[in-house]
């Protein structure tokens, strides 16, 4: 079996980001569903979900479902070798995962599949009372701003604005997004919602936003937040993070 994605850099940034939070897991490639990777970090604070639907691939030659156990850091190291205009080919042959770049020349890597059983993770059915949509670079700037001050970020959403706050020993930071300023693409909130999350996970995973078009931030007061990255070709990377309980 093999699948080909038009831009290896998308995978490079997303997998590299995930590898900072999760060490290993199972790539599931399904003839109908496409590619999917779901995993939870060891402390159970974050659950990541990466999906590339069947149609997002230029070539999709999969006849039966395959589970490939991988060490994400190993894959990320290889994917960091992706250059502009490289296509990514993923394959699976006699217990080995094939990662190949085709652009200027063809470079292929083979890694043994790890003996990992896919974790049976529940499909989250959470409802979110606040839904905010921002451009991915606005989102990345927001994380970088907060990193200067504290290690906790606090989301606050109301009818017409989305505020991210942090306070630490160094001081306080407040970033305000409004529709008028153009920083906020969409906002839909029931009343006012506020919740706090550990910044570290956002920082670790922020690399994925480099290849995302827009980011959807969904949360409710003192409930988990779902951060959805819209990737090219209808692919999606999201993570669900537990709130901080003070």
């Amino acid at each position, binding site marked *: 079996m093999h699948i080909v994605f038009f831009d290896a850099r998308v995978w490079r940034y997303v997998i590299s980001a995930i590898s900072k939070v999760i*060490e*290993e897991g199972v790539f599931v490639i399904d003839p109908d569903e496409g590619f999917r990777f779901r995993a*939870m970090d*060891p*402390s*159970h*604070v*974050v*659950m990541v979900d990466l999906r590339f639907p069947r149609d997002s691939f230029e070539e999709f030659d999969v006849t039966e479902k395959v589970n490939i156990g991988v060490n994400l850091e190993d894959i990320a190291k290889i994917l960091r070798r992706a250059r502009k205009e490289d296509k990514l080919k993923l394959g699976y042959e006699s217990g080995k995962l094939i990662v190949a770049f085709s652009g200027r020349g063809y470079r292929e890597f083979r890694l*043994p599949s*790890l*003996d*990992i*059983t896919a974790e049976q993770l*529940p499909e*989250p*059915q*959470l*409802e979110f009372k606040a839904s905010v949509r921002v451009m991915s670079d606005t989102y990345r700037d927001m994380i970088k701003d907060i990193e200067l001050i504290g290690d906790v970020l606090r989301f606050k959403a109301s009818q017409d604005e989305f505020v991210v706050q942090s306070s630490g020993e160094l001081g306080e930071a407040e970033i305000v997004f409004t529709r008028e300023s153009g920083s906020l693409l969409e906002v839909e909130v029931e009343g006012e919602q506020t919740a706090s999350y*550990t910044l570290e996970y956002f920082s670790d995973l922020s690399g994925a936003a480099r290849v995302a078009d827009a980011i959807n931030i969904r949360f409710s007061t003192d*409930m*988990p937040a779902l951060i959805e990255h819209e990737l090219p070709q209808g692919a999606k990377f999201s993570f*669900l*993070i*537990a*709130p*901080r*309980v003070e």
Partner: protein
Amino acid sequence: MPPIVDFHLQPQLEELAKFLRQHLSVRRALLIILANCSVEYEGRSASHLGEGDRLIIIKPDGAVLVHRPWGYSPVNWQPDSKVLEVFMETKHNSEKVVVIKSVRARPREVLLIRISKAYLVAAAQGLEDSAEFVEYLDERQIRDILASHPEEIEPGLRIVRVEKPIEPGFIDLYGIDSQGNNVIIEIKRVTANVSAVKQLKEYVDAFKAKNPHTRVRGILVAPSISKEALLLLNKYGLEFKQINIEKLYRKYFSLEKRSTQKHASILDFIEKAALGSR
């Protein structure tokens, strides 16, 4: 099946005697009596307790406890009863009392409880309690603490997976050390014995078989290890790391620490949401 509970408020003495006999004949009942009574004891020692309001508990295994309305310890007790009898007795002043007689076989000890007035009697059949009483932490809790604080095992160790499935079972913790070696960790909350060493060896062997070109270390984590186990461990080239469970508890798990925990598990929220939508 839920327990069956039966009770009488302010029972007449005849009713009380009948109720007690009925439930004692089944034997498995737990009985609670609030009554005015006097108690006599004779065995290794002897005592007499005059009349007063007491709480009497008779447990399904024959243990009998008589509590005064204050204090945590019983004033009279019988660790077990060979014979438990209930009968009516008429005192000198022709006043009637219900007598509960518990006889312990060895050492021979007799407890006589004379009830002159009962306020409440209750019986519960089929109470279930199979939980283990755990001092400080159980194995799963130790595992979770070490997963989030691998530095307690050794500096530079990163935990990759908790409960990693491998052919003969599950590896408690699987990680990578500072040198890049794979580390397989087996945790015991009591003194590690030979079978714990063999179990760890099995996991290490299974892992090596699956990943032939990797370097693998096996670490047995426990409060102590038996001599035989240590010999075998050395022979297999495995390692032992001593942990102090009380210290781990006080450092990471005591009630105060738990109340200031920073995160709930994301799974808790997902489970709650799934329950709510059902």
